[in-house]
């Protein structure tokens, strides 16, 4: 399934946050959206999943959804959004309980996603017992349980320390390599963007508009930390964003 943003503009009160955005999310690719803070990239992600409605323009989905998909547009949140009173398995089960699947089938899906995210040993642990990286893996497992058409990831690694971030990036890459999924990945971290994005969309500062779209052809599995080609891409992106970020940083907050 493919997602398309068609002339999206939006304002909060008097503040225009997004202006005339056209964008296509092709099936089976990861599209990273980067931009200075306050450029509206998280707002854009909420439009994509239908959690918010843009003032102008349309969000369109095209093509068939996967056969056993329970929730085509599925988010992964920066702060994990796990229910603290449910165990790891219970948190995953939560999103299946409304689906009218037979109990045994639900159990099978839970076991499967736990195995794929290597969480089987932690199935009965409560969120408070888990590290941040583990929590985000539970959230990823939960997202995979509904077999989404598109994963909408809102700075999923920003709350984690840099070592954990590296480990989770490896996990995401291997998950995608085994079964390619479609994803929109919002981040302000350029290293994440060049490691995970097939296509990187650079937004300008507020009001956010598409400044440039960069395609990276190196297969995900072959991208490594310290790869000179990636570093060059990252440096180029930084050049693009640097002035915008400086200007955005100097703006007075008036909201």
């Amino acid at each position: 399934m493919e997602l398309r943003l068609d002339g999206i503009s939006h304002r909060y009160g008097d503040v225009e946050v997004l202006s005339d955005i056209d964008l296509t999310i092709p099936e089976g690719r990861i599209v990273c959206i980067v931009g200075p803070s306050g450029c509206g990239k998280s707002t854009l992600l909420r439009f994509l999943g239908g959690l918010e409605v843009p003032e102008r323009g349309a969000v369109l989905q095209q093509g068939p959804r996967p056969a056993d998909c329970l929730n085509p547009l599925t988010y992964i949140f920066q702060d994990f959004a796990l229910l603290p009173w449910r165990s790891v398995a219970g948190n995953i089960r939560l999103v299946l309980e409304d689906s009218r699947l037979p109990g045994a089938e639900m159990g099978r899906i839970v076991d499967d996603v736990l195995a794929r995210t290597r969480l089987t040993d932690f199935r009965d642990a409560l969120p408070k017992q888990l590290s941040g990286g583990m929590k985000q893996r539970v959230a990823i497992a939960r997202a995979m349980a509904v077999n989404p058409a598109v994963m909408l990831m809102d700075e999923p690694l920003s709350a984690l320390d840099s070592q954990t971030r590296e480990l989770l990036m490896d996990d995401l890459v291997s998950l995608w390599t085994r079964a390619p999924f479609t994803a929109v990945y919002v981040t302000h971290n350029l290293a994440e963007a060049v490691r995970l994005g097939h296509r990187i969309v650079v937004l300008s500062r507020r009001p956010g508009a598409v400044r440039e779209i960069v395609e990276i052809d190196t297969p995900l599995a072959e991208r490594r930390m310290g790869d000179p080609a990636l570093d060059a891409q990252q440096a180029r992106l930084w050049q693009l964003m640097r002035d915008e970020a400086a200007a955005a940083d100097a703006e007075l907050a008036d909201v």
Partner: protein
Amino acid sequence: MSDPDTDRRPAEAAAATGDASAPRPVPYRGGGYRPVHIRGIGIVTFIVLIALVEWGTRTGWISNLTLPRPSDVLATFGDLWTTGMLWTHMAPSLSRLVVGAAMGVSAGIAVGVAIGLFSVVRAGLVPLVAALFPIPKIALLPLFVIWFGIDEGSKYALIALGTFTPTVVSTYGAVDNVDRTLIRMGQSFGLSWVSIVRKIVLPGALPGILSGLRVSLAIGIILLVAAEMLGAQYGIGAYILEAGSLYDLERLFAGVVILSALGVLTSSGIGWVERRLLDWRV
């Protein structure tokens, strides 16, 4: 400069002589401002106070009009126990408290959740609850007698109304404080409204509801005395009122001690429920 520790002497001496090159220990400045749990002090405070009153009343330093002798209060309590009157008074009071508080608390939680979930209900009921809250419920007792009869009905109603308003306030506060990202998550996974309320909102509000319950039940116990003002022959409240009108300080204090014990008991009961249900809290 004092030097309490002989080992430090060279360093202190160095500091005193202003020799900047000599190593000096960094002074510790981080003590205090941290509540530490000390066992037994609470009990000791009680015992000392009671012993003081006992001594005071025995020597006549405290007149028998001012305070009863603690040992006499104990003897009165013993009489209550041996004659079985303790249960004659406890049983109706407990049933009034349980039935009244159950009605008030369950209605309060239902209304509080509704206020938390529906803006229309919030707009309609929050002012009403704010208007009901400060009414001294005792003032309504005669009215309740007309509405619900002089027997158990008016007593249940008084305790129910008394526990209702604080429960509503604490419940909708608790619902308001449920982590919005969890609700957003539930919506993003396409969970039904019922599932979101049942599996996310209610469990998320439970800590706030339970801590509100501590206040509500304490108010329920306070209102027990008021509820038993009208038409109650037996009950801890009626017993205290009777003791007050007879100026029988021993019985008065025995009754008050029973109410205190009831308060401690409900509070620790809620503590136990919290430990059972809220072990997921960090």
